[in-house]
């Protein structure tokens, strides 16, 4: 096979995953507003129409994009012009980069070549993810500082403290997963979750690491600046926080970064704790049920089921963000810090300790 084939495959993978994530970002802006409306007994967006059709407001993301494009690109007088313009890029670039390591399907064989359905199967996997998503804080802090305004500065300060605190427990909470599946590669973690636990339960991360799952999900919400941890934005206290002085497409870059964080975060939770592309009881050749039954399924259908299960899980966790947002009010700042350092950190250390003990016990021939 030629390098042309490899390049074509690489480009195709990037294109497909980009389309998936950005499509989901667009859908999520609609889901967020419509979901909010229906949970609060309102109707939500329903005005944008094309050819007399509103279709429940699905054209609103389009109207939004057009609006952002045509607005004046305003730079405040007191702002640091270079950093003010760099900040949205610093926010968006790491958000896009994180999606590279998430596997959206099992490896497939085309024309005698095995192709991983993942943009880059890095051997550092999760570590890359944390390294890159940790950089997202620079965009927020830069935006907060370079706007030369009080509310953005407060937002930037809050987010630097919050994102750095929660990064600690986020990193520690996935240690359990790494210990159980003996790998930091997301593809191997997804593959490892195809096994069965006690002969009937899928060996998903959430079943082997329930505490780790809760801790990771909480830390993920804090990292993505979503309610109940949306203090950097805090509309009712500091107006809009770090992106207060931004208008037009720069603002929409921050918005996109937030939603991409959401979508990639949801994909990562699905991959690490809910089996990723694994469909329950579906092996390579077909369903293998616990009672010893098996149903043969054609290979193409298996692939579609698996990719579909990844998409479904990702969508569920995207929806969970919205669901949580309209359920739980924002924490007070001291409560966020106390939860991060005094509750999450000890619990994640305890989780690692207990996981280590259990693994050692199994190693010595227990269970």
């Amino acid at each position: 096979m030629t390098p042309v084939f490899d390049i074509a495959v690489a480009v195709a993978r990037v294109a497909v995953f980009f389309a998936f994530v950005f499509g989901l970002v667009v859908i999520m802006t609609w889901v967020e507003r419509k979901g909010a409306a229906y949970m609060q007994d309102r109707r939500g967006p329903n005005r944008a129409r094309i050819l007399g059709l509103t279709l429940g407001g699905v054209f609103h993301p389009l109207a939004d994009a057009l609006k952002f494009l045509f607005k004046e690109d305003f730079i405040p007088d007191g702002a640091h012009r270079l950093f003010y313009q760099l900040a949205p890029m610093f926010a968006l670039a790491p958000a896009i980069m994180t999606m590279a390591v998430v596997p959206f399907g099992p490896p497939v064989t085309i024309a005698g070549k095995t192709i991983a359905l993942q943009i880059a199967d890095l051997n550092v996997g999760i570590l890359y993810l944390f390294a890159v998503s940790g950089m997202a804080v620079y965009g927020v802090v830069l935006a907060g500082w370079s706007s030369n305004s009080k509310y953005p500065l407060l937002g930037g300060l809050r987010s630097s403290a919050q994102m750095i605190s929660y990064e600690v427990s986020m990193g520690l909470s996935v240690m359990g997963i790494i210990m159980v599946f003996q790998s930091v590669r997301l593809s191997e973690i997804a593959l490892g979750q195809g096994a069965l636990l006690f002969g009937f339960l899928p060996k998903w991360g959430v079943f082997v690491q329930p505490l780790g799952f809760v801790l990771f999900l909480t830390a993920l919400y804090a990292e993505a600046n979503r309610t109940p941890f949306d203090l950097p934005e805090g509309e009712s206290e500091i107006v809009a926080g770090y992106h207060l002085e931004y208008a037009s497409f720069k603002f929409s870059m921050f918005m996109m970064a937030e939603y991409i964080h959401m979508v990639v975060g949801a994909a990562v939770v699905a991959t690490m704790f809910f089996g990723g592309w694994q469909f329950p009881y579906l092996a390579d050749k077909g369903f293998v049920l616990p009672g010893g039954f098996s149903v043969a399924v054609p290979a193409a259908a298996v692939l579609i089921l698996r990719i579909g299960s990844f998409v479904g899980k990702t969508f569920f966790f995207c929806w969970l963000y919205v669901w949580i947002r309209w359920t739980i009010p924002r924490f007070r700042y001291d409560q966020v810090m106390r939860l991060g350092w005094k509750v999450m950190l000890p619990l994640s250390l305890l989780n690692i300790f207990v996981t280590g003990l259990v693994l050692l016990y199994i190693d010595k021939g227990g269970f």
Partner: protein
Amino acid sequence: MTIGVKKVARPEKMSFGESLYLLEIMKGLAVTMGHFLHNIAHNKDIPTIEYPEVRRTMPARFRGCHRLMKRPDGSPRCVACYMCATACPAKCITIVAGESPDPAVEKYPVRFDIDMLRCVFCGQCVEACPCDAIRMDTGWHTPPEDTREKLIYMIDKLLEK
């Protein structure tokens, strides 16, 4: 204690289950999902009125936008007596009187402007009018406009309602 400050009783201590938060969050999620599903299934129950297409029927005694009454021959009933302009607490009525062509009537309003941006809809003008020439029974609140000039209603606009 300062007057008007109300002390809300809070539980001294949360129970263990409550302080864990997770169970309480689940309950909250159930509530919001309940509303969500109910509103999807019973779309008609949402109390929102979709304003420009659907309009709330105002109660019969609602007092909103003004109108000027006409005589049977179509001329304004108003005799330009300035009673309404005098009674108006917001000073939003401007009247310029002219001599009426009709020998039975002394004066008629050449100009009769109401500045709807200043009007407080108190109804004093209606109370003051000796000829029942001004009423506020159009069943309308002032519709929004894009310029201030459009919100100063001239006599033609007031007569046509």
